[in-house]
């Protein structure tokens, strides 16, 4: 299949002159050899900067992840068995109230003689109430 010829707009003589004039007058000064070298050097520097710019986010992400990992390890409590936690906890000094409380709730502690006698001296309803509380 024959390829269609490349299309170029046809201009009349006047337009062709105008276009030629514009093309000639409206153009930059061509670069000299030294300017071409400088152009290429600036282009290489730009490409190098771009490489670094692409590297920086990757490095920053890696560094950030490492920092988060290290900080997380440094501040988080070390996992310990419950027994070791209990051992590590200092024993609280027994207070008089606590001793009484322990006595009251201990199952095998019988009522004292005096308490029994006192209970007998109390009215019947008081004894009933106390037996509810004290006797188990």
């Amino acid at each position, binding site marked *: 299949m024959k390829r269609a010829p490349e*299309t*170029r707009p046809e201009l009349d003589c*006047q*337009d062709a002159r105008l276009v030629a004039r514009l093309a000639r007058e*409206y*153009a930059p000064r061509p*670069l000299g050899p030294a300017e071409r070298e400088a152009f290429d050097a*600036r282009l290489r520097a730009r490409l190098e900067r771009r490489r670094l710019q692409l590297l920086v986010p990757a490095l920053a992400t890696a560094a950030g992840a490492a920092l988060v990992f290290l900080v997380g390890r440094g501040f988080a409590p070390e996992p310990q068995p419950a027994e070791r936690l209990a051992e590590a906890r200092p024993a609280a000094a027994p207070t008089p109230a606590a001793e009484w409380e322990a006595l009251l709730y201990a199952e095998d502690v019988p009522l004292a003689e005096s308490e029994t006698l006192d209970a007998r001296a109390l009215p019947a309803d008081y004894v009933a109430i106390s037996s509810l509380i004290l006797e188990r």
Partner: protein
Amino acid sequence: MEGVAALQATTVAGADLEASFEDFVASHRERARRLAWRLVGGDDAAAEDVTQEALAKAFRGLQSFRGEASLSTWFYRILVRQAHSYRRWRAVRETWHGLWEGDAPDPAPQAHGDPALRRRIARALETLTTPQRDAFVLVHLEGWTVRETAEILGKAEGTVKSHLHRALRSLRRQLGDLAGDEGDGR
């Protein structure tokens, strides 16, 4: 141009890629810079920045270049988009400068030729729409065919021809005197 052909191959990689890219830059540096210069309104520094940024983007994208379009068409498409991006950014900057600092200085005071004529042509090109200016610069000033221009701009050939017609009509109205003697427009 061997490097350019090597770049077109899909197996180029690593050091070979860099060497081929250098050849590509050497082959297209001047043409790319001239196109950028014309698209950004005759600003030397902006033209270099646009050209280098387009080359840098092309270098990064070379690994994924599939060869569906020609390499130069692909690269100049990047360049034209980069020039658009620059122009948008400059429009914002000029609005800001206009609010606070008055008129911006001539962007290319050291360029060759007649500065007044260059500014006049630049102003006339600025009155065109972006697609009209792109089409006019690519076809009439840079010598691309309508088909190549359509590929670069991602438009239909008929659309490009329509833009060219309107652009030429507008420029004929503004700069028609330049079609006469050399000294008419100065």
